[in-house]
């Protein structure tokens, strides 16, 4: 790990690079609004142009059985299969199901962890969309307790 001061100095340089050279034109991706506004898991996949999802043992969803607080629920999605285009994390009962979409390249493992908000107990999904458009998924239930005094 490096010190904070270094981070700051470097970040200024990197930010400058990004601004001046337009380093990532190829990756100037459009935020997929319809997918993030879709209500159900099926609608999300439709918005992304993927096929009907098939449950697969090769995809893994990780998360707690019970989340003490729905504001922060740690989730992981991964697969060791080759030819993955996107990895998605979804919460079925959220107002919009899609939480995050990761665009996979050959340089990273198809294995991501982040934290999500959950309004209530729900099934959570990890979906791997393959290069051929096939969608493979794994799901698990996460119970959300409010905890505390409610005061």
């Amino acid at each position, binding site marked *: 790990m490096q010190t*904070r001061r270094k981070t700051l100095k470097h970040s200024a340089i990197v930010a400058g690079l990004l601004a001046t050279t337009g380093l990532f034109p190829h990756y100037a991706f459009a935020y997929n609004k319809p997918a993030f506004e879709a209500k159900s898991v099926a609608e999300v996949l439709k918005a992304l142009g993927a096929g009907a999802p098939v449950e697969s043992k090769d995809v893994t969803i990780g998360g*707690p*059985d019970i*989340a003490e607080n729905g*504001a*922060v629920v*740690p989730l*992981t999605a991964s697969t060791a299969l080759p030819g993955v285009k996107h990895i998605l994390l979804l919460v079925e009962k959220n107002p919009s199901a899609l939480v995050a979409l990761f665009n996979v390249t050959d340089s990273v493992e198809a294995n991501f962890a982040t934290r999500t908000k959950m309004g209530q107990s729900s099934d959570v999904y990890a979906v791997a969309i393959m290069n051929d458009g096939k969608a493979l998924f794994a799901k698990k239930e996460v119970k959300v307790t409010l*905890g505390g*005094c409610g005061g």
Partner: protein
Amino acid sequence: MKKIVFMLALAGLAATAANAQKSAAVLAIEEYRAMLADGNPSELFEAKGEDLWKQKRGPKNASLEQCDLGQGPGVVKAVFVTLPRYFADTNRVQDLESRLLTCMESLQGFNAADIAKTPFGKDEQKNVTALATWIAAASRDMKFNLPQVHAKEQAAYEVGKRLFFQRGGPHDFSCASCHGADNWRIRLQDLPNLTKNPGDGVGFAAWPAYRVSNGQMWSMQLRLNDCYRQQRFPYPGFGSDATVALGVYLGVNSQGSKSAAPAIKR
């Protein structure tokens, strides 16, 4: 990932050995907490606090690098575990946050009374919390060792003890109503017994902490403030003698325990 698995294994072992009657729900909650501990957003506040300490700010355009937190001007390492303590220049027992206000006033020219009156999470109050987070982090895993030498330090402990047991408000609650015995829980939340040493990284030794419920960083002052709110007590002034004396009572009780601050809490 490996770290998470390791922590889970540890939590599982400790649970089976120490507390066989723990329900599946409690074990699942422990698993959840272990997952969160790996990647604590308090690090963001630490980074900000370090910046604020070194930055020239305020009407006097000065940094806090000459601030004396008890071990001499500028010493940050290991000071947190000796606070609250008596300071000769103010002739008061002060905790970390009230001492920071003193430094922000004397070195930087801020108005300490104004900052004390600012709501938590706003303006300079927000900065005090970030500073406290960074300073606490510089004592991580060190043992609490509050001085009880000066007469005012000894008196503050006794006053803090009386405040801890003071019953009042519509519910007759005191701090001890929740934190007065072993193995107590409100809903699913474990409540440390703070009438004695609750152990490493528990109770006083766990704040400042990041609260996942609201995504806020809470210093000890805010922790005590919200305890009093839930106790249905009136409002304790920021850095007031009551909050500092309570800090002395809790800190001295935690003598010898390791600080886990900045921690992460539900």
